[in-house]
């Protein structure tokens, strides 16, 4: 009996090359390439009066320089608006190279290609651009006031206004015994993968083909965009995603201007061209997320049950809307979490500002939604003097109510209908993990030492595994090795390991014999991408289905060869045998039998020649069959799966300095069946660290003219090991999803979602003053203390 791989803590196969330094990230390929550098706007809002590039071509080592004037056809048009939405009435996108106007610091204006990056950057300094400055719109308040406009033709700076409801929230609130209103705010942060963006392209004139390597979360998306913009057929463009040094959302945007300009340069120059972003460029020209302001009206009963909830919020999407309304739509739907308010109404405005674009960052709109809902739950508990966990429990969807329809439309245009979950059981687990019931004893003990501690809890539900589809191809070689390709990419999630586990189980082969390829359009041209915690659900399921098909074929051929019934066969360690007998045949031999050959190249192919294989009275390949031992399939779900989780954190807030220290962090997590618990826990650890960053450190410090003041790792504070909890207690709950064959949900983003909500609750609990904006620094907490001190005096 082969041991089951699914659910086992299997060590990652990708690690060997990565720890040896033999990984291949995009900047590692094509060492002979020329280097591209981009001139970026120093102003947040300006009209371009003139661009003079005359001095550039005289520089030794410079090969070319392009501005918008040099672009033709589709390349001269604005970049695509990837995800249109009917309520996105005023969508705008930038040009690959700015035409006439720039709308954020960092917008691409010109591209230089030179022998190396140093020379290319020297050349940028020789380009003279004359600007006419325009007033910059920075921050939600300025955008809402609309005293100045980002785009002349977009009134009020409003790109979209969207509204959804489930019941009559206003009436329910009016009739409720208790009501509250809250204003809640979250600032901008960013994904900040350790590897920035990068693209390499090579044009092959002999084959009339373009080959592109890019650090992306969607190789098929980049392929389609490049083909459309360069006027090539899809079949002329290959996109290969090598090792990717982290993504967290920012690498799903496509095409970036550079992803089009580099292939264009390669085609025009007949040389390989490479663009490798530097860190400052990543800050000012990729994407950010999170900035939103929310106003909540809620009505509830004596037990804290929410009877009506009305949320109005404002989303700062930056200067353009290439990725549509995904982030605010997610906030507006996912803020409901594990709860079922009597009636719900939500409305948001998506606003233009003269800042870097906003696109999904790990969690994508959910940290904000979770913050809004969990702050509301805590406020209700405080108002009624109830236990915060009890108020949550009073609002939970119950285990027997699944599938539960929230009566709204989710980001994928499908019903917001939860597939499975058990929130009461999860609450029991988190309370136990953090010792909820004895926290007051802990608090008193700490108070006796002169210390101030607080406990926070936050619950969330995460729509994972969004469609539309993923596919997989499984090929069993005559050596018995199994080659599997799936189109989505991998940026550190261990796909090669997790997917091989699925194949090993389904096919009955050794894990070591399975090799997975991801993100190579030559191997699987139909795919969507790695985002929204969808890889395991989508590609995992597709791989399972494709392996099943390969297995069916293998068993059919084996049944013939062994003169047995298919139902009597089993596959163990790559060998098919008739159960309970010695009669067996290796999968590699079945691969030989599956392919009648004309020519012999080696022993395996000699055995497969048409004189050795098949029934001479029939055609070598039957009419409804094909040669080879392969399986291909696609998985397309009716709607998203819904993972869920709860985090609890205990913090100590320094009585003197207001420094916030983490004493304990606990996570309960339900992503359905686990493929590899080691990898899932790693995802949680990483997510929690990003949650800590979002709650306590990370913000984008724009000044009023739109300059990003902290565009370096020196000034934008991401957690080091010194900032994360020394240990994270994790417990799992497995409510399998009925929507896919493996019963899995996604796990990629979960860890980050409740961070700000949990920390805000814990700090509020420690300080006994309302926390309504995150992140919070020690100096901000100190200021809050001062602001609230007079009231504290009065109440004494």
């Amino acid at each position, binding site marked *: 009996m082969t041991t089951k791989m699914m659910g086992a803590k299997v060590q990652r196969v990708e690690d060997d090359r990565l720890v040896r330094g033999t990984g291949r990230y995009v900047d590692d390929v094509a060492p002979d390439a020329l280097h591209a550098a981009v001139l970026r706007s120093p102003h947040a809002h300006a009209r371009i009066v003139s661009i003079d590039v005359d001095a550039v071509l005289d520089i030794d080592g410079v090969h070319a320089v392009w501005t918008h004037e040099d672009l033709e056809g589709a390349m001269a048009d604005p970049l695509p608006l990837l995800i249109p939405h009917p309520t996105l009435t005023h969508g705008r996108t930038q040009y690959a190279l700015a035409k006439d106007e720039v709308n954020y610091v960092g917008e691409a204006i010109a591209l230089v290609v030179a022998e190396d990056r140093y020379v290319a950057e020297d050349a940028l300094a020789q380009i003279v651009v004359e600007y006419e400055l325009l007033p910059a719109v920075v921050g939600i308040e300025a955008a809402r006031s609309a005293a100045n406009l980002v785009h002349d033709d977009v009134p009020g700076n409003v790109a979209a206004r969207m509204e959804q409801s489930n019941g009559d929230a206003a009436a329910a609130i009016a009739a409720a015994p208790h009501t509250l209103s809250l204003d809640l705010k979250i600032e901008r942060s960013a994904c900040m993968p350790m590897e920035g963006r990068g693209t390499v392209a090579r044009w092959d004139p002999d084959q009339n083909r373009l080959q592109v390597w890019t650090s992306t979360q969607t190789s098929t998306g980049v392929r389609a965009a490049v083909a459309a913009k360069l006027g090539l057929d899809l079949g002329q463009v290959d996109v290969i995603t090598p090792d990717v040094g982290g993504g967290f959302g920012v690498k799903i945007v496509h095409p970036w201007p550079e992803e089009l300009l580099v292939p264009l340069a390669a085609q025009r120059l007949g040389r390989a061209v490479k663009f490798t972003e530097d860190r400052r460029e990543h800050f000012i020209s990729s994407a950010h997320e999170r900035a939103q302001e929310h106003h909540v009206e809620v009505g509830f009963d004596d037990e804290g049950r929410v009877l009506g909830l009305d949320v109005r919020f404002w989303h700062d999407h930056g200067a353009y809307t290439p990725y549509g309304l995904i982030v605010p739509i997610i906030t507006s739907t996912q803020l409901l979490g594990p709860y079922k308010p009597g009636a719900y109404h939500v409305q948001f405005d998506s606003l233009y500002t003269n800042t870097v674009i906003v696109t999904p960052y790990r969690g994508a709109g959910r940290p904000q939604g979770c913050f809004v809902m969990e702050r509301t739950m805590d406020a209700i508990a405080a108002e009624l003097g109830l236990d915060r966990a009890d108020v949550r429990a009073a609002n939970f969807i119950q285990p027997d109510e699944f599938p539960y329809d929230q009566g709204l439309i989710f980001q994928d245009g499908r019903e917001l209908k939860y597939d499975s979950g058990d929130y009461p059981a999860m609450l029991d687990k988190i309370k136990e993990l953090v010792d909820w019931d004895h926290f007051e004893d802990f608090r008193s003990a700490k108070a006796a030492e002169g210390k101030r501690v607080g406990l926070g809890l936050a619950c969330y539900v995460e729509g994972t595994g969004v469609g539309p589809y993923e596919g997989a191809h499984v090929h069993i070689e005559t050596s018995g090795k199994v080659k599997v390709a799936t189109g989505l990419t991998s940026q550190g999630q*261990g796909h090669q390991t997790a997917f091989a586990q699925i194949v090993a189980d389904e096919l009955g082969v050794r894990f070591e014999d399975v090799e997975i390829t991801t993100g190579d359009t030559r191997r699987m041209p139909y795919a969507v991408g790695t985002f929204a915690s969808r890889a395991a659900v989508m590609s995992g399921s597709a791989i399972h289905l494709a392996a099943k098909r390969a297995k069916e074929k293998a068993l059919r051929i084996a049944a013939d060869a062994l003169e047995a019934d298919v139902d009597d066969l089993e596959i163990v360690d790559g060998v098919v045998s008739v159960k309970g007998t010695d009669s067996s045949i290796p999968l590699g031999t079945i691969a030989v039998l599956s392919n009648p050959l004309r020519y012999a190249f080696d022993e395996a192919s000699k055995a497969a020649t048409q004189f050795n294989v098949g029934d001479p009275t029939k055609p070598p390949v039957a009419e409804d069959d094909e040669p080879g031992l392969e399986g291909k399939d696609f998985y397309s779900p009716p709607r998203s799966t819904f993972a869920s989780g709860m985090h609890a954190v205990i913090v100590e807030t320094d009585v003197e300095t207001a420094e916030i220290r983490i004493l304990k962090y606990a996570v309960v997590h339900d992503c359905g069946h686990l493929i590899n618990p080691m990898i899932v826990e790693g995802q949680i650890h990483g997510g929690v660290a990003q949650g800590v960053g979002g709650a306590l450190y990370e913000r984008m410090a724009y000044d009023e003219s739109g300059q990003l003041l902290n565009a370096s790792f020196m000034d934008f504070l991401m957690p080091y090991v010194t900032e994360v909890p020394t240990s994270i207690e994790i417990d799992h709950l497995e409510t399998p999803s009925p929507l896919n064959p493996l019963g899995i949900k996604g796990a990629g983003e979960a860890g980050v979602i409740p961070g700000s909500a949990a920390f805000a609750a814990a700090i509020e609990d420690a300080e006994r003053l309302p926390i309504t904006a995150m992140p919070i620094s020690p100096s901000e907490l100190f200021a809050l203390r001062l602001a609230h001190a007079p009231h504290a005096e009065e109440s004494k």
Partner: protein
Amino acid sequence: MTEQTHQIRLHVNGVEHEAAVPARRLLSDALRHDLGLTGTHVGCEHGVCGACTVLVDGQPMRSCLMFAVSAAGHEITTVEGLARPDGELGPVQQAFRECHGLQCGFCTPGFLTTITAGIAENPDPTEDEARDMVAGNLCRCTGYQNIVKAVCRAAELARSGEDGAA
């Protein structure tokens, strides 16, 4: 105008390399692009993330803060030089695999070199000392939990390796 170059010898992982580099060429770029040793990664180019860390005469150095010309005459070790002579993974590499100390692997070479120097100096670190050892390196993926575990495990492997050799 042509940029003046300097002919230098770089001693990397026990191998002598010749390169002609401009005075301003960073060691990180020289290693990656002139020598083709792409295991050393560049995450910030301003000395904060630690991804580009290499050992210079056994001491961890940020190769993005050092010019290639100033590395001449020194003994440089990059991630490619951390495996054992027989090709097996070195103790720190082995520990990272075992403890799931990496996800995307981009920050990893900098951690591996830093920890190699760290456990040479302190072969039996406590958990706090292990945390200190990696406190100057950024990782955006792992949340560091398993990296700290890997430091302790690497020290253990290195110690048993020494015992075995003795």
